[in-house]
């Protein structure tokens, strides 16, 4: 399977600030890929480079097999984009904006457009200046989703939508992907959305990729929390590799353990005699919080 997007070692500076610092990203054709990171991590800059709006200082970016900077028009015929912060022309109605963007892209599916306007409960007759944030978002979503583009680039597409509309968005993306095998690059903060839509995710921080892979793999990489009551104090537990944050209170212990070390640790515990045992797999939240932590990348390692 080829990659719809492949980015290696991308670097981009704005004056003294380094927005991207060797970022890697690969999105397989036909998958929904989550693109995650705290505010200011460089998500929007990456998307703008992929759209040929900005030029990287160094590194490679390929999109649908082409160079996003030099083959802009050809590539843009095959993709649709929803910007992170949607603004509309104050004097144009939502319906006009949807039609205009669709036509500029080379046509859109009219039936699907009408269907999407209904499902998102959008009033297309209102002027751009009178829409709320959520409704502006809907205009951009309808314009992108009604196109026949093979790649959708969505920058926090559900910000400002109510939970009902978020659900509609998820349904539509799932349908589109099932039907046409479209590729979706979804930058998002909403974990439920990522969990329910994305097969693979890339997490970035301070312009660098800190984690990439399927959700299952990422969970596997994370730690399990263990609380146990033992027959006798477990000597040497703190010396085992992969054990973190150990707190011992006589025969009662609680600690976090890396997934590969779990087997050894359990053996050690049974040797001491287990009275009760609670173990909890990592939640997605913990996974993300670990990466969204604001301490510098170097300090984590």
């Amino acid at each position, binding site marked *: 399977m080829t990659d719809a997007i492949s980015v290696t070692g991308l670097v981009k500076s704005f004056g003294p600030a380094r927005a991207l610092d060797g970022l890697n990203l690969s999105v397989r054709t036909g998958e929904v890929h989550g693109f995650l990171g705290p505010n200011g991590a460089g998500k929007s800059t990456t998307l*703008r480079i992929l*759209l*040929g*709006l*900005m*030029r990287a200082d160094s590194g490679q970016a390929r999109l649908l097999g082409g160079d996003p900077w030099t083959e*802009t*028009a*050809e590539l*843009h*015929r095959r*993709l*649709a*984009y929803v*910007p992170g*912060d*949607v*603004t*509309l*022309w*104050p*004097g*144009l*109605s939502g*319906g*006009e*904006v*949807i*039609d*205009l*963007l669709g*036509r*500029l*892209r*080379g046509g859109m599916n009219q039936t699907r457009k009408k269907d999407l306007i209904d499902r998102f409960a959008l009033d*297309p*007759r*209102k*002027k751009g*200046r*009178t829409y709320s944030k959520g409704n502006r978002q809907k205009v*951009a979503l309808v*314009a992108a989703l009604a196109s026949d583009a093979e790649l959708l*680039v969505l920058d926090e597409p559900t910000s400002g939508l109510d939970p009902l509309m978020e659900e509609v968005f998820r349904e539509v993306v799932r349908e589109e992907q099932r039907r046409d095998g479209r590729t979706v690059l979804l930058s998002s903060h909403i974990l439920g959305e990522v969990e329910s839509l994305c097969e693979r995710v890339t997490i970035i921080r301070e312009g660098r990729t800190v984690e990439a892979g399927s959700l299952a793999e990422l969970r596997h990489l994370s730690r399990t929390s263990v609380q146990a009551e033992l027959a006798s104090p477990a000597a040497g537990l703190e010396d085992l590799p992969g054990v973190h944050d150990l707190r011992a209170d006589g025969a009662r212990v609680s600690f976090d353990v890396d997934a590969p070390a779990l087997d050894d640790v359990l053996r050690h515990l049974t040797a001491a005699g287990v009275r009760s045992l609670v173990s909890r797999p990592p939640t997605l939240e913990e996974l993300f919080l670990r990466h969204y932590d604001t301490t510098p990348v170097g300090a984590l390692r």
Partner: protein
Amino acid sequence: MNTLTGTGMLLRLALRRDRWMIAVWTVFTSVVPLGFVSAFNATAPTAAARQDFVDTSVHNTAFIIAYGPLHGSTLGQLVTWRAGFIPVIVGLVALLLMIRHTRTEEEAGRLELVGATAVGRHAGLAAALISVLVGSAVVSALSALALVSAGLGAGGAVVFGLGLLLTGCAFAAAGAIFAQLTAGAGGARGIAIVVLGAAFLVRGIASVSQQSGGSLGWLAWLSPVAWAGEFRPYAGDRWWIAVPCLLATAALVALAVTLAGRRDLGSGMIQPRPGPAEAAAALRTPLALAWRLHRGALFSRLAGFAVVGYALGAVAESISHLLDNSGAAARDLLAGLGLRGSLLQQYVDGMMTLAAVVAAAYAIQAALRPRAEEVAGLAEPMLATPVQRLRWAWSHFLFALLGPTLGLAVFGAVLGLAHGINAGDVAGQVPAMLGAALVQLPAVWLFTGVAVALFGLLPRLAAWAFAALPLSLFLGWLGAELQLGEFVTGLSAFSHIPKLPAEPLSVLPLAVLTAMAAALIAAGSAGIRGRDLPIG
């Protein structure tokens, strides 16, 4: 919490945001009368020469429309009369600042952000009013100081300043009303400019009537543009005019506050109509979108050029008669002011340059539209479609080149038509005035070029393109006034334009200006192709 809580804080914010704007505005408007003092001292040093000038000028309808009625021939009277266009500038800045701090903030959602803090309902309006009042007070004080420093009497100087202060207050209050009417700042600005234009015309009618002993002089009371003149600085110093002016301003403020209390955040008194659910078949290219975005400004500019062109053309004939009335004295006087050629030619030159300046301002505004789209985040969705950057940018630049062209063509043709009808020479005057207007275009395009180059190469400084226009005018004026020589005068683009129809059509300066404009546009276009977009 009362409705004005937080006004002081918002006022500091407004003054902080406008510090440059207020500095330029106040210094420029208060220095201008000093220029008139030295000009009159140089050209009409004696009482007799000044009286000659007055005798000529009171018959010149265009002068009376532009500056108001002339009440005497002392230096103070002449200088403050000649400064009669300053109330228009004060009014314009006051209106635009008011709308900027009220409706623009509301439209951008910033008022909501501020309004949710411990800030009273009317604090935003009050802070905007006070900030304009502060600016007007500075203009007023500096202008009075300038006149006193030039050796004119203090009484007249203070009355002159007071007139400008109250003009600023009245227009600030009017701006506060317009800001309540529409949901968009653009609409509010449109209404403000139409009303300012109407106020200017009303003063013109009232002034001509006063000067010729007609019965319409009372109309001056309806136009705040006329109030500063009604104070009659150095011609009676009518202090008491301040009372009706303040009462009228208070009434306008009360109306604005009432309107503000009757509407919701974000809405206007005039409800926006819903638009079409689907785009018209033609709305499918960047150019079609640009047409949608530019047509309102284009049509209003064309209408403005036509109306002003007609008014200026209609009075041109009376100027050619002046020669018969005042003869050689007037001609000598005008030659002394650095003006050559017939009185009519002088008039045409002045009006054509004025039209070219207005056209250049429009050109800069239209050329910077894509920059506004970039900053607002509207360029990004466009450029994520197969539309190439240059095609997008050029669909706007086209209006920056052809819009002023059409505007000047309308201005010249209508002026020629109105003058031709009076002079019985339509066939001769229409092409002559059309030529005199269109020959200004290379200078206008140069400003399009400056705006395009800044947008492409130094986008964060793009708004400085507007500064190029007053700078160019100022250098030309300063150079001529202080006789700094050809080099400084030559920095003004307009000084190179041949003065048709009296002068021959010299192609070289036009070709050089056009080539410079083309080079700037090419450099800007290259910049647009190569740079990141958007740059915030």
